[in-house]
C-alpha cells in the first residue's frame, strides 16, 4: 500500500494537512458569533471584509478540480480548454452590477439563499423550490469532483491500495473536513482559504518560473505542445480537433461555453454563500475589481497542460497531467507542498458547497414544505446535519459510482444552474416577470438542455442549432428558450402575487448599519 510512497513529499503534505485541520477547528472562535444561528454558522454573520472575502470567494470559485480539469483539456485537445479564460472575464462585470443589489436586499430581509430571495420577490413557493432543487442537484456532483481532484494528487504521492482501501486517505480527509465544517461553519473554509490561496500562488509562481527555465522558454513550450497536439490530431485521422488554435467549428462552442458557464457560476449555492457573506455591497464591488487576479493565475494553471506536453509527460488520463508535471520538475519536498495546495484547494470549496447546499435545503425545502414554524436554532441544527449528509453523499458517490458519471453530471450541472439566472437576476431590476412564467421558463430550459445533452453513448455539452455547421453550448440554447418562455408568459399571465421587497431595499445600506 505504501511501498512506493514518496516519503518526503508525503511528510510535507501531511504537515500542511494537519495545519489546516487545526485552523478549521480554531475558526469556530474567530469573529465570535452564536454558531447556533444559521446566519452565523452558514454565512459567517455577513461580516467578512474585502480581504477575507477576496480569499474566501477566490478559494471558493477556483477549485482543486479547476486546477486539475482545465489544464487537462489543454493537454488533451489544446486551445479549446482555454474557454475558461473568457469565462472568467465575463463573470466579474456581472458580479459588480448584480450582487451588490442582491446583497442589500438579502441583508435587509435576512435572505440566506437564492431561493429565499425568489420567494420574497415573487411570492411563489414552487419557483423557490425549483431554484433550491436545481442548486442542490448541481452541487452534489461538484463536491464529488473536488474529491476526484484530491484523489489524483493522493495517487500521485505513491499511495496504492485495492478496492475500498484505495480510498482510505480520501475518506479520512473528508471525515475531518465534515467535522470542522459541522463545528465552525463558514468560518472554517474562510480561515483555511488564506493558507490554500497563498500556497496555490506560490505553486503557480514557481511553476511559471522554473518550467520555462528547464524547457527553454515559453516559445519552446508552445512549439513543443503544438507539435504534440498536431500529432494527436493526425493520429485520430482528423476526428479530434486538437491544436494551439481553435478549429473553425470550435469557435462557437468555445465562446458559448464561456458565456453559459458565466451565467451559471454565480447561481451555484456556494457562490451565493461566498458572496453574501461579505460585509457590504462595496466589499463585493472591490472584489469584482480584485478577484481577476485569480483569473490570471487560472490562465497560467491552464498552460500547465502545455508544459506537461512539452515536458513529455505521458498519462492515459489527462487529469493526471498536472500532478505528473509537478512530479517531473520539482524536488520531492516541493512536490508535497504543491500537492497539499491542490488537496486543500479541494477542501475549501467542498466545505462551502456543503454549507451552501445545507442552507438551501434547510431554508427552501425543509422549512416551507415540512416544518414552517422552525426557529433559528432548529434551522442551524438541521443545516449542520445536512452539511454532514451532503458530504457523506458525495463521498459515497465517489466510492461506488464511476467517476465518469460525476463528470457528466457536473457538465449538466452548469447547464442546469444557468436556468435559474432569469428568476434570480432579472428580479433584481424589475418585477415585470411573473413567478409562474419564470417557473415555466425554468422547466423549459431544464428539459431542452437535458434533452440536447443526451445521446445514446454519452452526455455532450454542445449541440448544433440551425442546421449542422453551427454548434452552441446547450446551457446557452436552453437559456434562450427559458427567457423566451418567461417573457411570453409574463406578458399573458396576471401578475398579482405578493412582493415583500420594495425598490429602496436594493440600494446600498448606510455605513452605520453594517457589521463591524
Amino acid at each position: 500500500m505504501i511501498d512506493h510512497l514518496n516519503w518526503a513529499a508525503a511528510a510535507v503534505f501531511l504537515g500542511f494537512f494537519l495545519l489546516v485541520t487545526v485552523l478549521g477547528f480554531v475558526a469556530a472562535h474567530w469573529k465570535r458569533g452564536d454558531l447556533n444561528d444559521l446566519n452565523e454558522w452558514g454565512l459567517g454573520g455577513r461580516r467578512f471584509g474585502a480581504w477575507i472575502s477576496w480569499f474566501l470567494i477566490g478559494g471558493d470559485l477556483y477549485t482543486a478540480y479547476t486546477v486539475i480539469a482545465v489544464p487537462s483539456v489543454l493537454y488533451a485537445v489544446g486551445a479549446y480548454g482555454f474557454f475558461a479564460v473568457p469565462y472568467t472575464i465575463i463573470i466579474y462585470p456581472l458580479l459588480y452590477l448584480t450582487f451588490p443589489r442582491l446583497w442589500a436586499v438579502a441583508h435587509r430581509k435576512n435572505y440566506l439563499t437564492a431561493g429565499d430571495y425568489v420567494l420574497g420577490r415573487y411570492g411563489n413557493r414552487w419557483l423557490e423550490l425549483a431554484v433550491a432543487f436545481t442548486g442542490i442537484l448541481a452541487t452534489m456532483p461538484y463536491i464529488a469532483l473536488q474529491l476526484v481532484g484530491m484523489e489524483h494528487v493522493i495517487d500521485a504521492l505513491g499511495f496504492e491500495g485495492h478496492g475500498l482501501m484505495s480510498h482510505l486517505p480520501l475518506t479520512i480527509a473528508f471525515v475531518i473536513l465534515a467535522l470542522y465544517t459541522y463545528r465552525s461553519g463558514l468560518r472554517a473554509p474562510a480561515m483555511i482559504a488564506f493558507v490554500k490561496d497563498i500556497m496555490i500562488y506560490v505553486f503557480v509562481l514557481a511553476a511559471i518560473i522554473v518550467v520555462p527555465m528547464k524547457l527553454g522558454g515559453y516559445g519552446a513550450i508552445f512549439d513543443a505542445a503544438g507539435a504534440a497536439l498536431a500529432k494527436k490530431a493526425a493520429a485520430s485521422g482528423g476526428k479530434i480537433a486538437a491544436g494551439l488554435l481553435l478549429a473553425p467549428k470550435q469557435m462557437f462552442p468555445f465562446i458559448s461555453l464561456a458565456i453559459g458557464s458565466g451565467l451559471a457560476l454565480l447561481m451555484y449555492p456556494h457562490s451565493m454563500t461566498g458572496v453574501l457573506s461579505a460585509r457590504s455591497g462595496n466589499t463585493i464591488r472591490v472584489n469584482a475589481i480584485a478577484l481577476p487576479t485569480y483569473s490570471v493565475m487560472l490562465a497560467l494553471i491552464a498552460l500547465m497542460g502545455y508544459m506537461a506536453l512539452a515536458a513529455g509527460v505521458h498519462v492515459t488520463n489527462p487529469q493526471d497531467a498536472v500532478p505528473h508535471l509537478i512530479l517531473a520538475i520539482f524536488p520531492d519536498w516541493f512536490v508535497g507542498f504543491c500537492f497539499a495546495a491542490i488537496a486543500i484547494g479541494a477542501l475549501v470549496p467542498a466545505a462551502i458547497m456543503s454549507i451552501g447546499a445545507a442552507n438551501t435545503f434547510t431554508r427552501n425545502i425543509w422549512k416551507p414544505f415540512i416544518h414552517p414554524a422552525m426557529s433559528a436554532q432548529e434551522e442551524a441544527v438541521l443545516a449542520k446535519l445536512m452539511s454532514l449528509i451532503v458530504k457523506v453523499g458525495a463521498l459515497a458517490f465517489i466510492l461506488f459510482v464511476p467517476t465518469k458519471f460525476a463528470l457528466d453530471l457536473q457538465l449538466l450541472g452548469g447547464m442546469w444552474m444557468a436556468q435559474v439566472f432569469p428568476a434570480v437576476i432579472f428580479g433584481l431590476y424589475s418585477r415585470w416577470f411573473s413567478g409562474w412564467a419564470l417557473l415555466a421558463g425554468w422547466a423549459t430550459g431544464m428539459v431542452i438542455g437535458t434533452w440536447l445533452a443526451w445521446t445514446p453513448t454519452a452526455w455532450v455539452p454542445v449541440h448544433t442549432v440551425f442546421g449542422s455547421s453551427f454548434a452552441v453550448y446547450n446551457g446557452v440554447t436552453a437559456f434562450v428558450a427559458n427567457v423566451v418562455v418567461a417573457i411570453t408568459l409574463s406578458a399573458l399571465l396576471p401578475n398579482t402575487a405578493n412582493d415583500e421587497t420594495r425598490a429602496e431595499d436594493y440600494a446600498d445600506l448606510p455605513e452605520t448599519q453594517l457589521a463591524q
Partner: protein
Amino acid sequence: MKYLLLMLPSLASFLVPFYNVTEPRLFGFPFFYWFLVVLIPLSSLVTYLVYKGEKR
C-alpha cells in the same frame, strides 16, 4: 455608458475569429493566449474606473 464600459472586455472576448491567430507573438505566447490574458487586467481596470466614477 457605464454598462458599455463594463461590457467592453467581455465583448472583446467574443471576437474569436479576430484573436484566433498565432502572430504577433509576445514572450513566446501566440496571440490567442496573450490577448485573452491581457483582457483580464483590462477588465479589472475598467471595473475600477466605473467604481471610481460611481463614488464621485
